[in-house]
């Protein structure tokens, strides 16, 4: 067998191996589609409610105007929505810096009746990076800047 032919044979073998590899990877990713999700969105929770008391994570947007602080000062109530469904959430503790209305949040906790009781809150940052001095800030962002600079 000539050298050129051996080279071609190796190339064909490699291409077949690569196709098999990519296929296996895609199948694995597909199988992990639901298991590898870090959190449920509100419409998942409403459509397939987990059994009461099971620890789950709920992720979505904090609805604008929904954050209210309870009288004890450390409990915060808000609504997490994904445009299709909305779930009320109660959390007692210190919220992360990026926890603001209209922004993403991941709450770890469990459903108690119709309310999601969170024992941990993680803020989710969006993909936008914009300096503070931008003129096109929304009212919520402007409020946040004012609150922070006080």
């Amino acid at each position, binding site marked *: 067998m000539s050298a050129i032919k051996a*080279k071609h044979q*190796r*190339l064909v073998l*490699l291409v077949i*191996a*690569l196709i098999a*590899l*990519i296929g*296996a*990877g895609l199948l694995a*990713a597909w199988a*992990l*589609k639901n298991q*590898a*999700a*870090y*959190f*449920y*969105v509100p419409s998942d929770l409403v459509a397939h409610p987990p059994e009461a008391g099971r620890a789950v994570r709920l*992720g979505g947007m904090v609805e604008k105007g929904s954050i209210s602080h309870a009288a004890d000062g450390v409990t915060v109530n808000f609504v997490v929505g994904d445009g299709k469904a909305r779930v009320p959430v109660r959390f007692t503790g210190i*919220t*992360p*810096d*990026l*926890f*603001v209305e209209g*922004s*993403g949040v*991941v709450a770890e906790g469990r459903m108690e009746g119709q309310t999601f009781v969170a024992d*941990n*809150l*993680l*803020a*989710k*940052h*969006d*993909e*936008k*990076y*914009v*300096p*503070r*001095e*931008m003129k096109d*800030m929304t009212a919520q*962002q402007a409020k*946040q*800047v004012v609150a*922070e600079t006080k």
Partner: protein
Amino acid sequence: MHGFANPARFLRLARWLTPLLLVPGLILALGALAWGFFVVPPDRLMGDTVRILFIHVPSAWLGMAGWSTIAISSIVELVWRHPLSGIAARAAAVPGAVFTAICLATGSIWARPTWGTWWVWDGRLTSFLVLLFLYFGYIALAGAAQRDAAAGGGASRVTAIFGLVGAINIPIINRSVVWWNSLHQPPSITMGKSAIDGTFLWPLLIGAVGFSLVFGGVVLMRMRTLLADIQAEARLRRKAMA
């Protein structure tokens, strides 16, 4: 391409190309970091922590670029048996692992004040940690294969095959934030569009170019070292035979 198969010719080229990559690379990278740390304004939500962006994101890109180099070199080694391709793949492993570790460390430091946690097992973070472990495995395997070859075991293709199989993790890292709900945000820079304001984007891109040049320079330096090692070993073996 086989013109550079002659190591002597490659070494002559690499000798003057190394400082040509390293010096402008260091100037651009350090300049962009200084720009990012001291000049750009704070982010609307994250404030000053946004400055981590300028080291975190180039590290992430180079961590993945390192394994892409390994994968492409491995294909060239397996199909065309190019004598320098295996050396290039091995030379990219250590800098790639270092940038991957920097990305993970800075990401963790960034996550604490912004997300409220040091670490979560979401798709992006987990797949990037897997990349670091793949680098460790690759470095160990390449070292073992070299010792084996030096002991007369003959050239082994197992390192190249591992480099190729590990490449499946690269598209998974890239797509992890799209396929699965994750705490890490989706990509900011996609095909010709950027959700990063120009104020942050310019130092980021210049830094990325600078770090890439440094990466290339380090890979060339390591290739020269590996070639010198192989030559020294061959010489010792010839002496032992004589």
